């Protein structure tokens, strides 16, 4: 028996020296074009992608000032990954400003699960959202 899985994926780099938000938005629009997502689902996932990219920009101290964004979709799971080659998850990277540090709270509220791995150099944050419908 052959079980057909329908998936779509994309991976691209962003530079923190550029207006990377536009790049993310364009790549995201292109990626979700073939997916049957609600307006709310799209907005939540894009907001989270921007937050994770901002987090990498502000805290990673990555020497190349870059991060790799990936979107992966299979069946009804949408996965966003943001990977950098910076300092990883350290106490130093925790924000001391009482008004900041809300990005993670937003990510948790808008997605179903979040995974943080720093087993190799840098940090990879992956957020997953289960959506109602799949590929068109």
């Amino acid at each position, binding site marked *: 028996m052959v079980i057909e899985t329908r998936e779509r994926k994309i991976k691209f780099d962003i530079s923190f020296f550029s*207006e990377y*938000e536009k790049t993310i*938005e364009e790549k995201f629009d292109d990626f979700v074009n073939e997916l049957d997502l609600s*307006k*709310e689902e799209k*907005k*939540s996932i*894009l*907001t989270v992608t*921007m*937050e994770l990219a*901002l987090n990498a920009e502000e805290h990673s101290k990555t020497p190349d000032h870059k991060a790799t964004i990936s979107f992966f979709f299979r069946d009804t799971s949408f996965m966003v990954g943001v990977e950098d080659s910076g300092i990883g998850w350290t106490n130093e990277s925790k924000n001391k*400003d009482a*008004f*900041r*540090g*809300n*990005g993670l*709270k*937003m990510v*948790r*509220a*808008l997605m179903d699960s979040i995974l943080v791995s720093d087993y190799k150099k840098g940090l990879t944050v992956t957020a997953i959202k289960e959506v109602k419908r799949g590929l068109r």
Partner: protein
Amino acid sequence: MTNYGFTITPEHGLVTIRFNGRLSRNDIKILREEILNNYSASTSIIIINMNLGEPSSLLVSIFLEVLDIRNRDGKGLAFCEMDRSTQKALQATGVLKYALSFDLETKAREYFNYDK
């Protein structure tokens, strides 16, 4: 102020902030300066219309700063026209715990007796 991704409309005793989409980091910086310098400590009521706004942690940090100043003095701050994801994001970060929220801008204006 119309050259940025937001507009601030001051009326007598009321300031309404509206967005034209996702704000750039520069827009957010300008918005922060504008609000904190001119409106956060003023006696005006502030209504933030999130209709075309996109939540972000940078924006949330401004809202929390403004709330901190205004709640100390018991001044009004209200959010309106939030879709579900904006509402979830603002709720998770504690912003809506300390501010009023309305589904429509007209309802917020009515609440503060600015229904003209």
